[in-house]
């Protein structure tokens, strides 16, 4: 198991085994122009990364496009990820990666603000005016046809609060099943709250592997698990 460490990072960089990501959370419409400029710049300087591209990078160790790859990641399953970020990614030919807290999507819109405030999901001004904050399952299904969607647990939990088999089933296994039921395709990756790394808890590593995820995203690296 590869634990995060400064030595691990040095070795990965020295081997050329790295990739650029940009982690976003809320992408409010009020900031759409700023996001558009940023994504346009990324699309000019970097290449999109599809799931196949990432698979190929792990298989060969070598990035195969002319420009370096860049993965824009839009966390949590905000409605504005589907309505603001995704269309801009498409405008500039970028593949977005969307880790989704599946129970946030499942939550009745009336209670989504409370859900967010209960589960470390940040809110911006437009989220506090009532109405739906999370994307709908139809939006999730639609996104999955052009981008990469995968679970960010069910309830936006870290491995340090997922303590027993029931917790694991709910956060690791059932979140995957919920997503796959609407996308009709295997959920290829998983990420804990706080981006905790694989290799820190055998119980949680085994859960992610046994659930059949191909990748675990973390704050220091991307782990190929299966």
């Amino acid at each position, binding site marked *: 198991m590869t634990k995060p460490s400064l*030595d691990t990072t040095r070795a*990965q960089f*020295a081997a*050329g085994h*790295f990739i650029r990501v940009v*982690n976003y959370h809320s992408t*409010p419409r009020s900031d759409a122009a700023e996001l558009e400029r940023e994504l346009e710049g990324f699309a000019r300087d970097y290449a999109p990364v599809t799931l196949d591209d990432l698979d190929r990078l*792990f298989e060969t160790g070598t990035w195969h496009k002319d420009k370096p790859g860049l993965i824009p990641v839009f966390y949590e399953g905000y409605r504005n990820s589907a309505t603001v970020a995704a269309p801009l990614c498409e405008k500039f030919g970028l593949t977005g990666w969307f880790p989704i807290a599946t129970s946030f999507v499942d939550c009745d819109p009336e209670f989504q603000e409370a859900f967010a405030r209960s589960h470390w999901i940040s809110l911006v001004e437009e989220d506090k005016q009532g109405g739906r904050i999370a994307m709908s399952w139809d939006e999730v299904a639609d996104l999955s046809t052009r981008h990469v969607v995968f679970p960010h647990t069910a309830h936006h939990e870290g491995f340090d609060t997922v303590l027993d088999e029931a917790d694991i089933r709910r956060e690791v296994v059932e979140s995957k099943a919920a997503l796959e039921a609407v996308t009709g395709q295997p959920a290829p990756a998983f990420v804990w709250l706080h981006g905790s790394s694989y290799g820190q808890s055998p119980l949680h590593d085994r859960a992610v592997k046994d659930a059949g995820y191909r990748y675990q995203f973390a704050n220091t690296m991307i*782990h190929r698990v299966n």
Partner: protein
Amino acid sequence: MSVTTPPTLDELLAAGDIQGVLRAGHERRLEREGIPMILGLADERGTIPPSTDASALATGAALVEVVDEYTAALVPWARPDDEGAVITVMQVLAMTHFAPGSTEGAAQ
């Protein structure tokens, strides 16, 4: 009344103020702004073949030097496997060597 403009990343770097870069990164509106990172790759099933891309290898070698520099500047107190310290170094590295307008910028 005069208004003080915060120093830019380039100005902070020119002054060798790595702590200032870290502070600037954490004072951004992180709930709505992109957070750049350069992530390593780990294959838990085995070994990733060595990269044959000279450009990636050169960039990686340069990044190792930056990791060493920022480790010394920010987290010399840390165990090598202190995940929080690793993330701190990688955050600052990404701000200065990947983010738009950084010293790396579009050159890579």
